């Protein structure tokens, strides 16, 4: 952790507070009352009671198998223990670092944290009473409530929770095929080898995040020593698939900007953002706030550009750019046609941050549990599978709009546990997920815009403050509170 920043921020914070006649301690207390309690889970008793009407244990029996032991799977397992008298819970997870703190990868990429700050070992957080199978599931037979691992172990279940997460599909980008597919945790040496050591990086894996910081430092140094008036090109992408944490591509852009400024090299660098979409954020208020920030910081941005190819030798990224044009007059419709066009755009880069295309794991996509696109089709409110009523899905693999963040999981796992127990008791499913997602969007070192929203596409702030304003308080929360909340609150106690 970089204490220099924390200290300079704390002094800025004290200055802000002194203007209002408050101390740091009082401010944190206020934050606790007004809403941080929702993040910490334990401090705000009344809010907790409202959320969990009763914490009465159910006597129902049944074998619950959870496939995937990441944040979603482990916290679901832990919470089920709180509500079951006779728990029979098995988690299947082959990766030893599966519960690593993924939201910290942006901070690792920006050099604020070290990779060891985000590594969390699965075996340290297996609660008593939960069985673990350290194998990889490759075959699902939902018709007969059975699945098979690569080692050939056949596991029968009464209830199945799918929490496998998603795959990062670097392989789809021409020039990076050797990278293959990856998951965020674990050994990604193959990926790093394919990315090389000349400016291509991605914070979407833990090891890749550490490598991103190495590359970033290298090219900031280059910008610093640049004297020929040319600018060092920093290019950032966002693909045409659903991604986990849609804010991360912008967070790393903002951190690179902050680091360039810190080195006094911003004037010799150009930062460009190439998103596949036509807006910065699905929620108009946040979109406007982000565009405002992009203008202020002097970034360039080009909508509807999807990265399809990387030429590592010549250092050129090729994007597929899409637009629509007014076509010929159609005499029958009595209007002009709209013609969709696209062309390849070649962009020279020095530093290229790749946000990989992402898809559901093939074992899910090819089984009867996956939809045509691969994700697990669930009722987006109850998280129950649309065809198999003893199957639930949570986290990145669930086909839930806007749901691929740790913040969503924090709401989803409570809904899932309540509904799963209701299903075991043969009752109607009472809990509903409203699509809550949170994106603590790092805008520079020291400030964060806390973008919270749900399916209404309206901001749904937890705090009585303008959510589109960047604040140091959210930075403190992102840096200090969210990791303990996730690791202790969710995985260790199942309550946050």
């Amino acid at each position, binding site marked *: 952790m970089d204490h220099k920043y924390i200290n300079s921020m704390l002094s800025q914070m004290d200055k802000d507070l002194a203007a209002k006649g408050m101390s740091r301690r009082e401010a944190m207390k206020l934050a606790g009352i007004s809403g941080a309690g929702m993040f910490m889970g334990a401090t705000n008793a009344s809010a907790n009671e409202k959320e969990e009407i009763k914490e009465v244990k159910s006597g129902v029996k049944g074998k619950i198998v959870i496939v995937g032991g990441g944040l979603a799977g482990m916290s679901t397992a832990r919470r089920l223990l709180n509500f079951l008298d006779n728990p029979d819970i098995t988690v299947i997870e082959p990766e030893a670092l599966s519960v690593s703190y993924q939201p910290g990868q942006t901070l690792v990429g920006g050099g604020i944290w070290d990779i060891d700050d985000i590594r969390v070992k699965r075996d340290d957080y297996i609660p008593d009473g939960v069985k673990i199978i350290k194998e*990889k599931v*490759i*075959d699902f*037979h939902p018709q007969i409530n059975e699945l*098979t691992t*690569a*080692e*050939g*172990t*056949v596991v029968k279940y009464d209830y199945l929770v799918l929490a496998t997460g998603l*795959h990062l*599909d670097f*392989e*789809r980008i*021409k020039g990076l*095929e*050797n990278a*293959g*597919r*990856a*998951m965020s945790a674990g050994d990604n040496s*193959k990926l790093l080898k394919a990315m090389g050591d000349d400016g291509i990086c991605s914070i979407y894996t833990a090891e890749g995040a550490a490598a991103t910081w190495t590359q970033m430092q290298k090219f900031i140094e280059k910008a610093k020593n640049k004297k020929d008036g040319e600018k060092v090109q920093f290019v950032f992408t966002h693909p045409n698939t659903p991604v986990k944490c849609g804010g991360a591509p912008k967070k790393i852009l903002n951190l690179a900007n902050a680091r360039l400024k810190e080195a006094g090299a911003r004037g010799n660098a150009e930062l460009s953002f190439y998103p596949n979409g036509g807006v910065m954020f699905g929620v108009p208020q946040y979109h406007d706030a982000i565009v405002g920030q992009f203008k202020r910081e002097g970034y360039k941005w080009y909508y509807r550009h999807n990265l*399809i190819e990387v030429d590592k030798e010549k250092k050129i990224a090729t994007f*597929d750019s899409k637009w629509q044009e007014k076509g010929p007059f159609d005499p029958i419709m009595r209007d002009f046609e709209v013609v969709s066009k696209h062309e390849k755009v070649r962009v020279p880069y020095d530093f290229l941050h790749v946000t990989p295309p992402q898809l559901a*794991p*093939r*074992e899910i996509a*090819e089984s009867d549990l996956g939809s045509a696109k691969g994700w697990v089709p669930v009722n987006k409110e109850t998280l129950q599978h649309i065809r198999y009523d003893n199957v639930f899905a949570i986290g990145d693999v669930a086909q839930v709009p806007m749901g691929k963040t740790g913040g969503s999981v924090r709401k989803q796992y409570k809904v899932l546990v309540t509904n799963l127990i209701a299903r075991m008791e043969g009752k109607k499913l009472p809990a509903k997920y409203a699509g809550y997602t949170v994106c603590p969007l790092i805008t520079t070192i020291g400030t964060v815009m806390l973008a919270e929203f749900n399916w209404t596409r309206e901001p749904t702030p937890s705090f009585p403050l303008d959510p589109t304003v960047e604040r140091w308080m959210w930075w403190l929360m992102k840096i200090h509170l969210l990791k303990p909340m996730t690791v202790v609150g969710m995985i260790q106690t199942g309550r946050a």
Partner: protein
Amino acid sequence: MKKIILSALVASVALVAADKTPIYKSGMLLPPQPKVIYEQQCAQCHGMDGKQTSFKGSSTVVYSPITGLNADALAKELKEYRGGIKSKDYGPLQKYGYGALMKTSLTDLSWEEIDSLSQWISNNLK
């Protein structure tokens, strides 16, 4: 369809076997097992020895034996056959009229699996 039958076969084998039989499927981030990939994807047409040149005795379908190939050249060609995941990005190779068929067989394989498969074919099918 082939894939469904195949996975059904693999599944039934796993169910019948009382002891644990490791199973392999391509494209699932498992360490590559080229021999199994060959059996699953290639042997039906090319035969286990790589010398089969027509499909189940049909004289209208003919192709070359795949013995004695160079691993690197083969890997390159298989990757071209496989193409990108979306063919509109960069299309599959159309060679000898078997492009579509080769693509179906290869589409699930990762680059790493194709490399190991090519090596295996080059080493074992003489």
